[in-house]
């Protein structure tokens, strides 16, 4: 990794790591007596460990000019592995908290092990850890291929990847320690949020600098989506996280917004985290890896355009459907509902464009589990966007809101769409960047596929049942005109579904573990082959460094 950086980049890396370590030290000192000190120490320790790596490799031979004739895929490789590891952790914690709802005393009397603290580890672990790393890894890969240009340098992709994972680490460890803003899917505190802004600016600059040097006249549709993901997530993140820390020596901050304005801002963020983190970027993946794997051109250029701009424009209005019948003014609720219903058009355009692309390649879908992952993802994308539009209708929402139906809907999207398109893309990209003819085992891809599908179906059906039963029990009246069920009655009725959900989740987690193993074995095969191949001294590099020294 270090040997791929130029000497100047190694110096830059040391300078940046020194700055980060100093920042961590400053936080630790300012936050002594507060829990912030733990995170200050964590940041400093991470930077110092990385400094050792850079120093150890500092005098390794520099990469030659021939690197510029190749795509730079090492950050993609690292990102794929990180995504799979975060996936297993995030999904595993998710299944753990699912069992907590069945056996609530599995907390060992420890604060960190209670549902409220573990749940954001699950949500952030899968959304940011698994999804985010997969997006960063695939975006670097797709960007270079569709632009026919190498990444602008070797240092900034590593800065983005490592910096982003530091953010994820601060987030997850913070929840366990009790550090949270309580804003759903934006729980990390002010210092983590500021750090993510820095990482994001560099990420965007990589995108722009590569596009500027592209050898293709047109920017490919996958890149539109990746760019929308980067840009809009930046807007959402900055606005929703505006807050005032109680001091620079404390992890705690107070949101700039309160009450109804805060609710609207939060769900404008929350729903568009779904749209631009969990949809746009993954549509970028779909628009590249699905046609590639199928060996078919994208079905319709015009549908790509209409779908993209429809999603970019309309999603930003839809957040208020999370607040039907609340203290939010009704005109905003109605606007949110209207745009949510209209969203079905661009969403289905994207889903249909993917499925119609497969025309002429359906025999491959039958034979190739990787392509089948992506096909099924497009199907679930269509299903869950339909369900989303349906649930945003005020009358439907009066039943579904606050119930497990919402949880089921989210997981139809998160498992069925986001995770499946990611696994499909990872199975496509891993042999590609490690220069292998195929994955270590196609059988295991097949096993993973069926585990994922079974897990998703069990999960979603359990939550549909529990959610609708819950909603109906809460609003059922006796003949005498009083409420028929106490809240605890509805809770008792949930138990079989919570067990079923936890089992469905377990199947999905096992699938992810199988996937991680398969990726790992593919990498081992690749490195074993490399180790076999050259039985000769590395003369060219030696000769070049001698020349440089003359």
């Amino acid at each position: 990794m270090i040997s791929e950086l130029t000497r100047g980049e190694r110096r830059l890396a040391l300078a940046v790591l020194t700055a980060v370590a100093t920042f961590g030290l400053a936080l630790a000192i300012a936050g002594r007596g507060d829990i912030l000190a733990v995170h200050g120490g964590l940041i400093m320790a991470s930077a110092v460990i990385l400094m050792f790596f850079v120093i150890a490799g500092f005098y390794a031979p520099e990469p030659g000019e021939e690197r510029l004739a190749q795509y730079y895929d090492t950050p993609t490789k690292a990102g794929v592995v990180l995504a799979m590891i975060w996936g297993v952790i995030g999904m595993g914690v998710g299944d753990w908290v699912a069992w907590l709802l069945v056996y609530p005393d599995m907390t060992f009397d420890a604060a960190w092990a209670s549902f409220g603290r573990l749940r954001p580890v699950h949500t952030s672990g899968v959304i940011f850890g698994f999804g985010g790393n997969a997006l960063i890894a695939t975006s670097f890969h797709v960007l270079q291929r569709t632009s026919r240009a190498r990444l602008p340098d070797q240092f900034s992709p590593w800065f983005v990847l490592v910096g982003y994972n530091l953010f994820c680490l601060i987030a997850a460890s913070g929840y366990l320690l009790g550090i949270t803003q309580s804003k759903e899917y934006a729980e990390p505190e002010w210092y983590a949020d500021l750090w993510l802004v820095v990482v994001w600016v560099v990420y965007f600059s990589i995108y722009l600098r590569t596009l500027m040097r592209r050898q293709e006249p047109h920017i490919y549709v996958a890149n539109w989506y990746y760019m929308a993901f980067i840009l809009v997530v930046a807007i959402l993140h900055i606005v929703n996280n505006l807050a005032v820390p109680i001091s620079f020596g404390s992890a705690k901050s107070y949101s700039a917004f309160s009450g109804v304005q805060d609710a609207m801002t939060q769900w404008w963020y929350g729903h568009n985290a779904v749209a631009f983190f969990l949809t746009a970027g993954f549509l970028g993946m779909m628009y590249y890896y699905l046609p590639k794997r199928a060996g078919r051109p994208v079905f319709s250029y015009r549908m790509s355009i209409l779908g993209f701009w429809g999603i970019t424009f309309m999603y930003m209005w839809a957040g208020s459907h999370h607040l039907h019948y609340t203290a939010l003014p009704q005109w905003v609720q109605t606007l949110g509902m209207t745009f949510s219903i209209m969203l079905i058009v661009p969403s289905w355009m994207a889903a249909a464009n993917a499925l119609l692309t497969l025309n002429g390649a359906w025999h491959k879908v039958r034979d190739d589990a990787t392509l089948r992952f992506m096909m099924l993802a497009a199907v679930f994308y269509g299903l869950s966007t339909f369900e989303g539009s349906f649930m945003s209708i005020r009358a439907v929402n009066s039943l579904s809101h606050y119930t497990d139906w919402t949880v089921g809907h989210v997981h139809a999207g998160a498992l069925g769409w986001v995770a499946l398109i990611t696994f499909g893309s990872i199975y496509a990209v891993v042999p590609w960047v490690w220069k292998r003819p195929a994955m270590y085992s196609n059988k295991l891809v097949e096993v993973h596929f069926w585990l994922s599908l079974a897990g998703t179906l069990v999960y979603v059906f359990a939550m549909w049942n529990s959610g609708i039963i819950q909603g109906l029990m809460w609003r059922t009246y006796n003949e005498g005109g009083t409420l028929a069920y106490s809240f605890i009655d509805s809770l008792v009725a949930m138990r079989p579904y919570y067990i079923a959900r936890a089992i469905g989740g377990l199947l999905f987690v096992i699938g992810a573990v199988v996937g991680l193993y398969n990726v790992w074995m593919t990498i081992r095969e690749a490195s074993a082959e490399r180790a076999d191949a050259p039985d000769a001294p590395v003369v060219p590099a030696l000769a070049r460094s001698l020349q440089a020294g003359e």
Partner: protein
Amino acid sequence: MFGIHQKLERNAIGFVVAIIVVSSIGGFMEIAPLFTIDETVEEAPDMRVYTPLELAGRNIYIREGCYACHSQMIRTLRDEVERYGPYSLAVESKYDHPMLWGSKRTGPDLARIGGKYSDAWHVAHLINPRDVVPESIMPAYRWLAETPLKVNDLSDHLAAQRVVGVPYTDEMIANATADAYGQAMPDGPFAAGVTARYGEATNVRAFDGKPERVSEMDALVAYLQVLGRLTDAAHQQTASTEGAKP
């Protein structure tokens, strides 16, 4: 139209600007007016701010992720009003930075939990929910009763709250720590200051049953007991709509 797009997708900067413009419209149209239209938040002259102890309790509620399973937003639906009480008004969370309306009811709504159960019930329930509600699946929070509350930085908390718009006075900020002690130690020297600054209706009690010290349990129960009780506006609103019926 598609011809224009062919030009646009050849220009990276143009495409970036187009994404920013197109995506910004929705949020701007929906969020900005909420700050400018007066009717968005009702008038409630009797609305009071959280005491330092209640604010600390609210922060424990946030820290433990209670909002993941409990909403604090009663919708304008008959069954919700009959189950939980008058529907929530915007003004009731006017000082909530951030709001805790929630999105899921694995447990019941808590917007009007204040005063419904005794302090002793809350303490027993938090120590082990299944002691008082056998079917409950809520986690036990035994350590709250044994953990002393961190009170030395409460002035900083109130000062930061004032920066974001909560009307704490200089006196409230200066006495934040003393007021936290005072509210949980009804017989101590600081109790009188709490009612003087936050009103006679403020609960001044040994919430966890142990008046000699201030625990995290004190703070959390103090917060739970004030939920829905910062203003009477919601009850008045319900009474006036009922009176208007023919």
